């Protein structure tokens, strides 16, 4: 296969998934600028390994590379990224007894956010630890199947299920505590 054909084939098959790649990178890195760099690096890596791709599921294949690229970047930037992010989170939410409230009022609708819902939801989802956040984004935003997610992350399907279940519960607790802070103030 000549190089230009490879490039054309690569662009036809991979560029349509650019939004998915960016969305995942943005949610993982929690920064627009970092997401751009991660996605560009991912596409270069994908191009390098494109010969090993056999055309089954282009989006899942690319998202796997985006995820790996993110984790490499994350390891390198860990110390500085963590210190700033954590401070923000501690100031905005307290999660401790969220579960108790949730069960006490026994009304899941109550935790629905009343105002500013997009911003609160974004904040809540970004508070989740990355292993929960990634399955939530892949399932709820990218609408991937458990099997695809399991393949991308390299974990059993049962683990995808339990992470989703626990992630949703944690998110419910975070949202509940956010509302409580709001109502109290």
């Amino acid at each position, binding site marked *: 296969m000549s190089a230009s054909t490879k490039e054309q084939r690569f*662009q036809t098959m991979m560029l349509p998934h650019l939004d998915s790649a960016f969305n995942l990178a943005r949610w993982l890195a929690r920064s627009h600028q970092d997401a751009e760099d991660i996605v560009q690096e991912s596409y270069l890596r994908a191009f390098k390994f494109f010969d090993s791709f056999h055309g089954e599921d282009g989006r899942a294949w690319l998202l796997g590379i985006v995820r790996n690229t993110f984790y490499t970047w994350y390891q390198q930037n860990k110390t500085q990224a963590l210190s700033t992010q954590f401070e923000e989170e501690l100031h905005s939410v307290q999660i401790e007894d969220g579960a108790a409230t949730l069960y006490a009022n026994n009304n899941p609708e109550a935790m629905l956010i009343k105002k500013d819902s*997009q911003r609160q939801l974004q904040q809540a989802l970004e508070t989740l630890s990355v292993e929960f956040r990634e399955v939530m984004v892949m399932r709820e935003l990218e609408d991937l199947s458990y099997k695809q997610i399991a393949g991308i992350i390299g974990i059993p399907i049962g683990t995808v299920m339990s992470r*989703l279940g626990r992630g949703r*519960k944690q998110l419910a607790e975070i949202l509940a505590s956010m509302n409580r802070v709001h109502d109290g103030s």
Partner: protein
Amino acid sequence: MDHKEVFELLPAYLDQELGLSDAIAVERHLGNCSECQHELEIQNVVSAQLKKDTAYFKAPTHLAHRIKTALPRDSSRSTRLSSWNFNWINAGAVMATLLAVVWSGGLYLTLPSAQERLTEELVSSHVRSLQVDHLSDVISSDRHTVKPWFNGKLDFSPQVIDLAAQGFPLVGGRLDYLNGRTVAVLIYRHNQHPINLYIWPSTDTDEAPQAASRQGYHLVRWTAGGMEYWAVSDLATNELESFVGTLRL
């Protein structure tokens, strides 16, 4: 399935990721367990809210251009190569293509046919039905109980015959998912050996029974009256054929 198992399966139930028999088991338990109903409601509310209100970050328009520019430009360099090198590269490419074609041809030959795959799928389904102790969804030896049970669960109505007098008592019925569709399964027994009879509509013309064997299990398939039938069991082939013969009388 007990409470703990159902509770853990709730996310997959919500996401419609469960197999048919598990989904039915979860539904049955949900009907009278308020803790599971509450948990499912939480999962559902959060999931719906996320799908509805979470920001989806689309790639900025300049990013595609940035990526295209950053891709390695091998194609422009190759035109500057000398003609000798160029031909040599072409010859290599032709060789590689030939190899790929031969190799993929070989792959194609070793691929199982649709019929083979279906046979394997049936044996796995049969084994699974024995393993998880989920042979029947409706347990009854009365065909007037089993047949109506399928109503509303299938887009066809399987014929249900009891063969107790002939030594093959009907044990029950079950839904299964095979060959990309929901199928009816009737369960018979012969001297403690279970027989799974799979039934689904077919557009093929009637075909006489044909026997096959896989992993120690015996299968007999035939088509009659617009339905495809597969009987699977660990019974000896002649006994399974006698079952099929009795059934088709």
